[in-house]
């Protein structure tokens, strides 16, 4: 029998970088239990782990705050590489609107520091405060603020990564505009730990808006709200975000939550343009009350046993929602009406045939279906991502260059 990964790691890393065998609960990936959880604190330790994995025949799955680990089970034996001990803020330059920090820094920690200087990083993926900077880069998720502010692919100015074969790359930089060489930063953002392990990142920041208002339109059915949503997406102003929630924030019915930011006078004018005549039916929230609503919306539909992410052009939202409702007993739903991304939480396990039918319907609309969370038994019959065609072939070739040994995050992006 080959040496256990845990034993191999024990010889390589200091004791504090190794979680005991009793501490592995909570670190399962796609239902599979790792042989060890390692917490390196340096590039050298990360490289040692990768080298040991390559020679020992096991995979390495990097994890940060575990808010979005993906549903795929790694193929075969694996260890989890937690970035928790890579946690420092390296360089915050408020006058440059940039910050550089290590991968394990949480967005809560960063956010608190930025708030002191009236700045922020405008991203709101589910469970954002627990998310780490490395996780944000790896998933590339912006949440509902992406259309107004851009996504991590726009915010990340530079990255240090260790590739699957142990190369240390310092990509991009700390300046706002940079076209020196091919944009490998974009390749790394959203690559979900399949090309390299993010060690640190520098990001572009934004001034915090003076006013941050929640405007809520409620309804029993989706029809009237979809009409309001269409008005919002085609208005002459772009809100910070607009999300259709079912059930609504109060736990019943449905609601359209519009986030409007800026100077107070501008917010007032924007709300009028976004809502038109429905403005009298809407209620507004500000301050901490509004922030709580945004948090509820941010995490909506993200922790059900089965979480699906549908995507199509925003104008097709009615068709997408009807396809979703035909396919599964929807427990909760959050539709980003600006981008066309729909997150669906399902309580019961869904049947593969229904999911295949849903994917086919969304693809017929030019869209796609991704599984964000789901039981391994289900995913055995239903791949997380749909067919990728020629671009998937390019993706595989890129992966073979950056992780030639096939060590990183096996089981992911493999269909």
């Amino acid at each position, binding site marked *: 029998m080959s040496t256990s990964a845990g034993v191999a790691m024990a010889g390589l890393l200091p004791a504090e970088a190794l979680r005991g065998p009793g501490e592995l609960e909570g670190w399962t990936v796609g239902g599979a239990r790792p042989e060890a959880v390692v917490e390196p604190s340096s590039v050298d330790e990360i490289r040692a782990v990768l080298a040991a994995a390559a020679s020992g025949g096991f995979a390495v799955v990097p994890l940060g705050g575990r808010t979005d680990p993906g549903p795929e089970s790694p193929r075969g034996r694996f260890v989890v590489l937690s970035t928790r001990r890579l946690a420092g803020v390296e360089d915050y*330059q408020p006058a440059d*609107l940039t910050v550089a920090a290590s991968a394990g820094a949480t967005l809560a920690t960063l956010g608190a520091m930025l708030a002191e200087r009236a700045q922020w990083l405008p991203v709101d993926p589910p469970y954002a405060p627990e998310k780490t900077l490395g996780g944000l880069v790896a998933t*590339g998720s912006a949440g509902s603020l992406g259309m107004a502010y*851009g996504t991590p*692919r*726009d915010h990340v100015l530079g990255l240090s990564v260790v*590739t699957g074969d142990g*190369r*240390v*790359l*310092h*990509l991009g*930089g*700390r*300046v*706002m*505009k*940079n*076209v*020196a*060489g*091919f*944009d*490998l930063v*974009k*390749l790394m*953002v*959203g690559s979900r730990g399949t090309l390299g392990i993010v060690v640190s990142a520098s990001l572009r920041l*934004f*001034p915090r808006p003076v006013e941050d208002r929640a405007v809520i339109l409620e309804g029993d059915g989706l029809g009237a709200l979809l009409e309001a949503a*269409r008005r919002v997406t085609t208005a*002459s*102003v*772009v809100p910070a975000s607009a999300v259709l929630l079912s059930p609504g924030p109060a736990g019943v019915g449905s609601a359209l939550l519009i986030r409007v930011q*800026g*100077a107070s*006078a*501008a917010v007032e*004018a924007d709300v009028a343009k976004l809502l038109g005549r429905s403005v009298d039916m809407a209620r507004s929230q500000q301050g901490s009350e509004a922030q709580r609503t945004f948090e509820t919306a941010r995490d909506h539909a993200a922790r059900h046993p089965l979480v699906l992410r549908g*995507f*199509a*052009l*925003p*104008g097709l939202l009615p068709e997408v929602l009807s396809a979703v409702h035909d396919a599964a007993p929807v427990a909760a739903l959050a539709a980003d009406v600006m*981008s*066309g991304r729909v997150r669906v939480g399902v309580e019961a396990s869904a049947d593969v045939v229904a999911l295949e039918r849903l994917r086919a319907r969304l693809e017929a609309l*030019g*869209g*796609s279906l*991704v599984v964000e969370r789901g039981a391994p038994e289900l995913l055995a019959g239903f791949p997380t*991502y749909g067919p990728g065609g*020629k*671009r998937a072939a*390019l*993706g595989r*070739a*890129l992966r073979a*260059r*950056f992780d030639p040994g096939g060590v990183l995050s096996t089981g992911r*992006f493999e269909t």
Partner: protein
Amino acid sequence: MNSLLSGSLEQKLRGIVGGDHVITDPGRLLVYESDGLTAYRWLPRAVVLPGSTAEMAAVVRLLHEAGIPMTPRGAGTGLSGGALAPENGVILGTARMTRILSLDPVNRVARVEAGVVNNRLGDALRPHGLYYAPDPSSQPVCTLGGNVAENAGGPHCLKYGVTSRYITGLTVVLSDGQVVELGGSGSDPEGRYDLVGLFVGSEGCFGIATEIEVRLLPLPEGVRTMLAIFTTIEEAASAVTAIISGGLLPAALEILDAATIKAVEASVFAAGYPKDAGAVLVVEFDGTDAGLDADAERAVALCEADGAREVRRATTAAERIALWKGRKVAFGAFGRLAPDLIVQDATVPRTKLTEVLHRIGEIGDKHGLKVANVFHAGDGNLHPKLTFDRRNAEQLARVEAASREIMAACVAAGGTITGEHGVGVDKRKYMTLIYGPAELEAMRDAKWVFDPPGLMNPGKVIPDPEPREEP
């Protein structure tokens, strides 16, 4: 003179694109000898102008079989020598691919062929109350295909970001003639690798984009433009930092230095700037009308606090154009001062602007060269301009030496060697200032995936594996 292509290949190419659209006549090829950076002149073997993606793919397949290197080219306005054909290479021009394929105001996306001129898309969008945000200075003539290849910037990137933020899909032809769709309508931006983002800015080295899907924005309701006049450039740079630190997010923050002001005012493009000013700062806000006056007032107060001796404000569209005029003509105004002009391009952290400008001044003095500066101050993107006469070899050598020192100074301040003009052929020699062998090897890896035989725009961007000092 005989054509540089073999007779049968030329005949086949003409068969695909039509007889008139293969250029082999040396006189006509001269047009393609250089781009916006005239210091480099390479004559292509031929120029082929396909009229569609299918024609492009067929042309590329033929050239691939013959092992002939190819260079994509749009309007040829690039400033880094990126659109020049390598030795024995053929230029793939997009001049005939000028259709706006679809315009979807509801979903705010448009699909265009690569040869569509940036401003022409803007004209088509205006009736729908929409626009395409990236606005490089060459906007009246540059193509969207070129914008994609260079990841073009422009004055309004400060608030809106660069080209890559607005490209949602690409149809690309790879070096073997394969047509691949990257991204595109309705594809999940978080699904799998961001190949669109990787392709944008690849300077024609990964393949040629033939169709481009762009994201559109509603035209801002209001605009406020101001021109602040300072006695010194330090004051102007300090005002920029004060505006950004004060939580304002202008659509543009542009500085012209004293040398540029003098050149503009002495030219036929005179914009009415005071000739004795040390610097002028253009500040622009856009968005919902109701919030703009308050933002503008704050910016004016911050400029005055930093020593602005006058702040002019535009109240009409004509006045706004007048305030921008000097900025827009800044490059052309140097035409009367010297036969040749190098517009350098580098980005530094915004708070290092003053320090770096001083250093650039010293470098110019040391080499006996006049350096003028126009820059996107809000995002630290500098454009030092060096005037010279390329027929004077000794002067040209001094320009080369000064350029390298300017790049090194920007890198030493935490910056980079190009913010928006690209590496092309001109800046390959500077790549080792910012990247080590591992990063350059990783970039070669990425290129290999898209272009295994290395036929797409070889000799650009990445230095050869063993970097040698270029003269």
